[in-house]
């Protein structure tokens, strides 16, 4: 109720919003944390609170509950939710152009392709959810039955290596940061990126249809601040500041570690080129939807025109805090 009043067009008061991160206060959420800490939101007359989440379901439901206004999740989740459940989402920016997920295995028993996983145990972070779907898509692409890959929940990717050593799994899903951590601890890891098998649009910002249609200019400003945050993060000259901002949320992370992880995530932001920062690639969304339909993950197709807004990035770039 309150929010609606303060966000009414023409209101001079600061507009209050909440952004919920994809997962915790990880370095991967740097653009949003920076957007707040560097004052990009406030410069645009916004007061956006950045709060953490435990993962995709919480992020998705928070926005629908209106306890939060914006968040970001894997595009797969948005497509599935919209197509299957008719969820009123609008996706409007893609900070991460390339999925952070990697298929990892022990270097001495490397798994080089998804096809090798047929009939084997694969360690996953959590069951269901986007990685599960991605594995299915990859299996299909490589021509094996997705169900033949037995998925075992092992928690963190770093813990998964332990199970691989015991031969209980042959590979696991992890991030680059986890790979580095394992290698630093003396466990060489072989890996390939999910994106090299099936390229899908990765993390996407989203909000509700209602917010988008009623407060389009707010959404644009929010995206503008995110964009500024992203640019800030990409500039290595700002690293000291960036890390300081991150540590305002995640006091526990050591600066060196933050630096390491920052260096690992930056390429994901710029994967499609520095000029295409944040760009929404509708074609890839459509492609994704096709394969999801083919796989039976979704029962019918959604009209992506209403869901995926690729024009906002340009507008946001123009705003510049």
């Amino acid at each position, binding site marked *: 109720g309150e929010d609606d009043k303060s966000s009414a067009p023409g209101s001079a008061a600061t507009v209050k919003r909440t952004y919920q991160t994809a997962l915790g206060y990880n370095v991967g959420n740097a653009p949003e944390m920076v957007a707040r800490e560097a004052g990009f939101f406030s410069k645009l007359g916004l007061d956006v609170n950045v709060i953490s989440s435990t993962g*995709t*379901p919480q992020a*998705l*439901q928070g926005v*629908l*509950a*209106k306890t939060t206004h914006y968040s970001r999740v894997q595009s797969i*989740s948005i497509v*599935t*939710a919209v197509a*299957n*459940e008719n*969820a009123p989402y609008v996706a409007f920016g893609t900070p991460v152009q390339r999925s952070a997920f990697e298929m990892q295995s022990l270097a001495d028993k490397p798994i080089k392709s998804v096809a090798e996983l047929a009939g084997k145990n694969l360690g996953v972070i*959590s*069951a*269901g*959810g986007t990685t599960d779907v991605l594995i299915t898509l990859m299996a299909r692409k490589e021509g094996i039955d997705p169900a033949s890959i037995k*998925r*075992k*929940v*092992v*928690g*963190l990717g770093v*813990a998964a290596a*332990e*199970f691989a050593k015991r031969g*209980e799994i042959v590979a696991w899903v992890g991030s680059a940061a986890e790979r580095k951590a394992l290698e630093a601890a003396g466990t060489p890891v072989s890996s390939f990126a999910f994106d090299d098998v099936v390229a899908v649009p990765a993390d996407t910002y989203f909000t509700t249809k209602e917010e988008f249609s009623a407060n389009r200019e707010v959404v644009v400003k929010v995206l503008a601040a995110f964009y500024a945050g992203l640019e800030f993060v990409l500039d290595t000259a700002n690293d000291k500041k960036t890390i300081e901002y991150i540590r305002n949320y995640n006091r526990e992370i050591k600066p060196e570690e933050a630096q390491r992880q920052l260096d690992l995530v930056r390429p994901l932001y710029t994967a499609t080129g520095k000029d295409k920062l944040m760009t929404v690639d509708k074609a890839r969304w459509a492609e994704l939807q096709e394969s999801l339909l083919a796989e039976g993950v979704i029962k019918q197709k959604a009209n992506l025109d209403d869901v995926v807004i690729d024009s906002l990035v340009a507008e946001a770039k123009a705003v510049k805090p």
Partner: protein
Amino acid sequence: MKPPGRNWRRAIDRSLVWWSTPLVLVLLYLIWKAYIAITGVSPFVLPGPAAVFEALKEQVTDPYIWKVHVWATFTETLWGLGIAIVIGVTLGFLIGKSRVLARVLKPFIVATQVTPKVALAPLFVLWFGFGPGSKIALAAIVSFFPIMTNTAFGIQSLPRSLREMGTSVGARTWYRFGRIELPYTLAYILAGLEVAIVLATIGAIVGEYLGGDKGLGRYALNLQNNLQIDMLFGSIVLMAAYGLVLYGIVVALKYFLIPWHESVRVLREDQI
């Protein structure tokens, strides 16, 4: 002989068993509906009762859910509870009888309880495997504590007169345990069991949440991931009903095991 007013009230009380739950369900239904109508809360957060009812109907009539998910959770819960009873009664007895053991063991037992199991999930899997083992372990760990606490409390509450009777007839430890302490403590254990069955269920379900391929927790997590919130709420109702049945069984046990106990006698009599 009794004035009619009382008979009436008693008849109502008796029939209550049949209509109270449906009545409250109807009431809840109305409140739920009204809440949604008034607040306009998104169905993705709190679906309407009709939708949940539809989902539930679908779930209840799906044999797969019974044979795979409910059955998995059921076996995990019972195994977990069984282990919890053995551990809980044993530890409760040791701790209740010996201040020394209480001093030595309690800090570590309490420590196992206050640590969030989520953080330890990999260890659980490492030690108990991907299968039902880790869920059973979780169910057992979270549910033995109330059994232990109540067992210790019961054994320490053993009336002095009965304890001394044991001494005076020259009963040895085992006789005391089996014929005096345990029967006396049974009422306390059963009260602990009421809490434990609920915790064991939660433990098994959370274990499935953290990993696994079947069980009600796994099923609910899937639904949550898929944003099938009406089905999710259906599954929550299912879990509630499931837990309720187990709980009911535990409560009913009282009537068979401790008919002599005051807490059962008051329930069987018309209270004056």
